């Protein structure tokens, strides 16, 4: 899958990293992206949100996509500028259908221990897209506009 057109960047803008499929290695892309966000002037709140969404995407890739198989890899592509952050995470799994994940905020699911990762990814980013297979997720986080001065 190529960059969703509404994300407003070109393929050539992206930096790619391939990391071993384990949760420790999965931290490295997060560190680099957060560093780039700090350099580009993102506030701690926005950084917190992106970090949370990315953490969930990486955990899903390692645990569910690659089934904790250490011989597999996770591909991360990212782009950061002062207006937006784009992150793609792809695993080697056979994918899933995001529409089939039950809503964890529905009354009957509230006490179920699992199923909140995808919901948090949606909540903390501007846009989330999956490829047709469901093993590649694209997330866009736009910088919130500064509050308008009150007169």
């Amino acid at each position, binding site marked *: 899958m190529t960059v969703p057109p509404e994300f407003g960047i070109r393929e050539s803008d992206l930096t790619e990293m391939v990391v071993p499929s384990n949760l*420790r290695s999965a931290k490295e892309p997060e560190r680099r992206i957060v560093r780039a966000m700090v350099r580009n002037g993102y506030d701690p709140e926005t950084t917190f949100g992106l970090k*949370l969404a990315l*953490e969930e995407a990486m955990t899903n890739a390692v645990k569910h996509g690659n089934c904790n198989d250490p011989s597999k890899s996770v591909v991360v592509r990212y782009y950061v500028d002062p207006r937006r952050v784009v992150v793609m995470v792809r695993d080697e799994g056979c994918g899933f259908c995001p529409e089939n994940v039950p809503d*964890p905020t529905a009354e009957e699911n509230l*006490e179920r221990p699992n199923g909140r990762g995808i919901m948090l990814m949606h909540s903390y980013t501007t846009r989330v897209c999956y490829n047709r297979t469901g093993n590649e997720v694209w997330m866009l986080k736009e910088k919130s506009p500064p509050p308008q001065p009150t007169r």
Partner: protein
Amino acid sequence: MRPPEWSCTMEQPSSHLKIRRSDDFSLVEFADRKILEELSIQEIEEELTRLVEGQMGLKLVLNFKNVDHLSSAALSMLLKLNRRLEEQNGQLKLSDINRQIFEVFKITRLNRIFQIHDTVEDAIAGFGRV
């Protein structure tokens, strides 16, 4: 509100948790700022399970004052702990959750499941009201 009086205070050295016990309740502080990684969450879960195991009616406060990041895996661990305590007629209360973390509880609507208090003192006082 006066600070809690510990009839028996015990510090337990552990990699992830600081545990203090009184006759009436237990207070747990997270040593880690981030409750994110699967591995550390598993270890935290094991430590908490050991703490509550067989403790019928245990009143437990989890103090989040050191925590500035968490993940859905941590929420899952808290839900399992809450369920376990309920099965043992115990109670779980959370305290000192910062604004960003509280937002995670609100977004997931788990603020409806957990009893969340501003401070440890409020949480302890809350035990008396139930």
